[in-house]
């Protein structure tokens, strides 16, 4: 039994229905409805996946007309291929587990049902984004997930920091989305269609791609490169890539299940998905030699910078969620790097494994925060290993998967695939070196995180009184931990099932054993360095100085301050914005306002002139006319005496006169 592509809309429709219900009622049963809707969507996604796997090379589409516009018809559509099916299955599965976790985490929140309403809205938009066969439909859902993200980051809007973080996330991603929108319009203008696949007329099909890459712009770029880079702007914003990564760590102000679902597993991966989806467009210029830059080269370098930058900053953060947030930034950089070097199936492989182990890590962090009475500072946690056994075990599995501990854990295989692809890239080896550095740093900061959080002595009241959470919160952790281990075996170099399913042209890389050994060595180095600095001599009190901060205070202070990106943006973009706003205010208040005041005064003056004219001249004439009418009326009313005999007398006299006239001279 499979799900035909015509019914693919059911997958996003189920959560959307619950979101609609949740908007109308405050009943707590909305949560259960949400979980059932997500589970239902998961079942439908599995059916769709079964259908897509029957023939992985086929792009099944269902297009329909939305409305007529001018001389053309705007068409939307749904697309079912292994990429869509795998992504929807992942999103619904992780989503269901996180919904269940939220049941426990948000139990005491007064806006419990509203939280699930927003989560469902997010899930519906995210699934709509995945099943879209039209860049326009994808863009609509893209903006909707941005809205849901805004609502959920600012869910505790009474906290000023949460409200500010929500605003920052929304505005920062909007900068990228502007580029995306421009690219979309340009693409629609030059091809006349926004459908991905449309029987040979879609924008991702050979004929259109050939015409797009054949046109050259004034600056020497191919048209497809320019459009691809504009669309990539949207992915930079949404996936937290350098230089728009600043919003993602602040987004941790939202409830932890939100961080797990939106800001680790699904929404931030939407940018990677977008580039993977339009990969034929991005790579259309690959065979051109005369162009100054290829679109994918930019993607690779942005990804490499982000991977290294995120990992560096993560080493110096003290908030458990912020460490994970910068780790997410870094891992998303890895995925972009993989896309850039041409291994888009490896990028999706890493996206899937990352979704599971990062959701696991965030839910583990949520479990810790919930148990430790909202203590998030790792310097003030500690000693939770014995108090929270399930959380510790699953968190440790997630940590090893993220660090890339060899052979058993999924992160190792997906990262291997990316590093191999980067090694084979013939443009430059710099992304490979950045990726290898990030491998060491990832293992290092995750060791630090686990050592500080779970080992040693509890260093605050909250950590001292922590105890394991209920089954609603631990069960998703255990399931995700199992996935974080098992999923890696779908894409090993010895059996690259996932890569072959996604990309029928995939060829398994031969050799590369040396690179694998090198990366194993680097993971070991990172873990060892972490243990040497943080595990050997455990922190005794929250006030102890960080060993690294003692060794290199200036570097660590800069990293803890996130290399000053926020300050830089505040001093440049922020100040420019303030100056523009002041100029606009001045123009509005004095130039436009002055003009309006002048016009108003002119109106008052002409009104008073008019009044003078009216009272002095016009009124006199009208008064004279009405006075004479009144006089005439008075004169005749005196003739009406009310005496009937008088009237009769007049009639009689008139009769006699008439008779005389007729008798004497009238009628012959």
């Amino acid at each position: 039994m499979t799900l035909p592509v015509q019914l693919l809309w059911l997958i996003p429709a189920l959560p959307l229905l619950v979101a609609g219900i949740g908007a109308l009622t405050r009943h707590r049963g909305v949560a259960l409805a949400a979980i059932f809707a997500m589970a239902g969507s998961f079942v439908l996604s599995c059916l769709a996946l079964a259908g897509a796997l029957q023939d992985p090379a086929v792009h099944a589409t269902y297009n329909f007309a939305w409305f007529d516009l001018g001389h053309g018809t705007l068409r939307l559509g749904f697309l079912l291929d292994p990429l869509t099916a795998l992504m929807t299955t992942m999103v619904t599965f992780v989503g269901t587990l996180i919904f269940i976790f939220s049941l426990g985490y948000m139990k005491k929140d007064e806006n419990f049902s509203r939280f699930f309403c927003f989560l469902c809205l997010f899930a519906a938009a995210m699934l709509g984004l995945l099943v879209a066969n039209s860049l326009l439909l994808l863009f609509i859902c893209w903006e909707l997930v941005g809205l849901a993200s805004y609502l959920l980051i600012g869910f505790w809007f009474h906290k000023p920091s949460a409200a500010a973080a929500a605003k920052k996330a929304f505005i920062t991603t909007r900068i990228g989305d502007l580029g995306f929108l421009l690219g979309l319009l340009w693409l629609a203008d030059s091809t006349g269609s926004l459908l991905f696949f449309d029987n040979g007329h879609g924008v991702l099909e050979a004929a259109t791609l050939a015409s797009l890459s054949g046109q050259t712009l004034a600056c020497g770029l191919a048209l497809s490169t320019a459009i691809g880079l504009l669309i990539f702007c949207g992915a930079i914003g949404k996936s937290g890539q350098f230089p728009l990564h600043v919003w993602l760590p602040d987004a941790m102000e939202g409830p932890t299940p939100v961080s797990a679902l939106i800001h680790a597993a699904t929404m931030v991966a939407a940018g990677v998905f977008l580039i993977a989806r339009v990969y034929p467009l991005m790579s259309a210029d690959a065979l051109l030699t005369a162009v100054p830059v290829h679109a994918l080269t930019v993607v690779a370098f942005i990804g490499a910078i982000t991977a290294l930058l995120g990992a560096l900053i993560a080493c110096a953060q003290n908030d458990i969620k912020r460490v994970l947030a910068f780790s997410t930034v870094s891992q998303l950089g890895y995925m972009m790097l993989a896309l850039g070097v041409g291994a888009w199936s490896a990028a999706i492989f890493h996206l899937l494994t990352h979704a599971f182990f990062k959701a696991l890590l965030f839910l583990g962090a949520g479990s810790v925060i919930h148990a430790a009475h909202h203590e998030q500072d790792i310097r003030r946690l500690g000693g939770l290993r014995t108090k929270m056994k399930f959380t510790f075990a699953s968190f440790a599995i997630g940590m090893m998967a993220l660090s890339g501990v060899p052979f058993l854990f999924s992160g190792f295989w997906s990262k291997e695939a990316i590093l191999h692809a980067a090694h084979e890239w013939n443009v430059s080896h710099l992304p490979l070196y950045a990726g290898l550095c990030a491998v060491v740093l990832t293992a290092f900061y995750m060791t630090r995180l686990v050592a500080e959080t779970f080992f040693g002595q509890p260093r605050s009241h909250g950590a001292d009184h922590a105890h394991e959470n209920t089954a609603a919160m631990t069960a998703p952790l255990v399931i995700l931990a199992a996935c974080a281990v098992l999923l890696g075996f779908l894409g090993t170099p010895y059996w690259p099932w996932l890569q072959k399913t996604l990309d029928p042209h995939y060829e398994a890389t031969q050799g590369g054993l040396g690179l694998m050994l090198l990366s194993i060595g680097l993971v070991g180095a990172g873990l060892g360095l972490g243990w040497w600095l943080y595990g050997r001599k455990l922190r005794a009190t929250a006030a102890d100085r960080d060993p690294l901060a003692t060794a290199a205070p200036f570097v660590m202070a800069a990293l803890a301050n996130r290399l000053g990106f926020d300050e830089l943006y505040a001093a440049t973009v922020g100040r420019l914005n303030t100056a523009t706003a002041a100029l606009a205010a001045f123009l509005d208040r004095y130039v436009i306002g002055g003009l309006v005041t002048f016009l108003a005064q002119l109106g008052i003056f002409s009104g008073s002139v008019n009044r003078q004219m009216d009272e002095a001249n016009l009124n006199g004439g009208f008064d004279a006319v009405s006075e004479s009418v009144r006089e005439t009326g008075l004169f005749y009313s005196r003739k009406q005496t009310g005496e009937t005999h008088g009237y009769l007398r007049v009639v009689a006299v008139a009769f006699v006169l008439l008779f005389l006239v007729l008798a004497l001279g009238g009628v012959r």
Partner: protein
Amino acid sequence: MTPLHLCLLISTALFCIGLFGALARSNTILVLLGIELMLNAANINFIAFWRYGPNPAAANGMIFVLFSIAVAAAEAAVGLALIIAVYRHQKNIRLQEATVLKG
């Protein structure tokens, strides 16, 4: 002296009597009677001009008079109702005193 002249003389006399009654009487009912007399003088003229006119076969003069009588009956009904209303208002029916509607 043709019959037509005779009829016209009678009708003129009747009209003058009616006019005098309407002008000279102060009792409203008698004024109404005078008006009826004038109306009937006109009716006699209708009949006379028809009967001694060029085409006595057509019944148009008689039909006209029938209408006139119907209108006179309606007028009498309205007039009597007005007289009753005036009586209720001023406790008599003297026409000279009914001058409330003067200008």
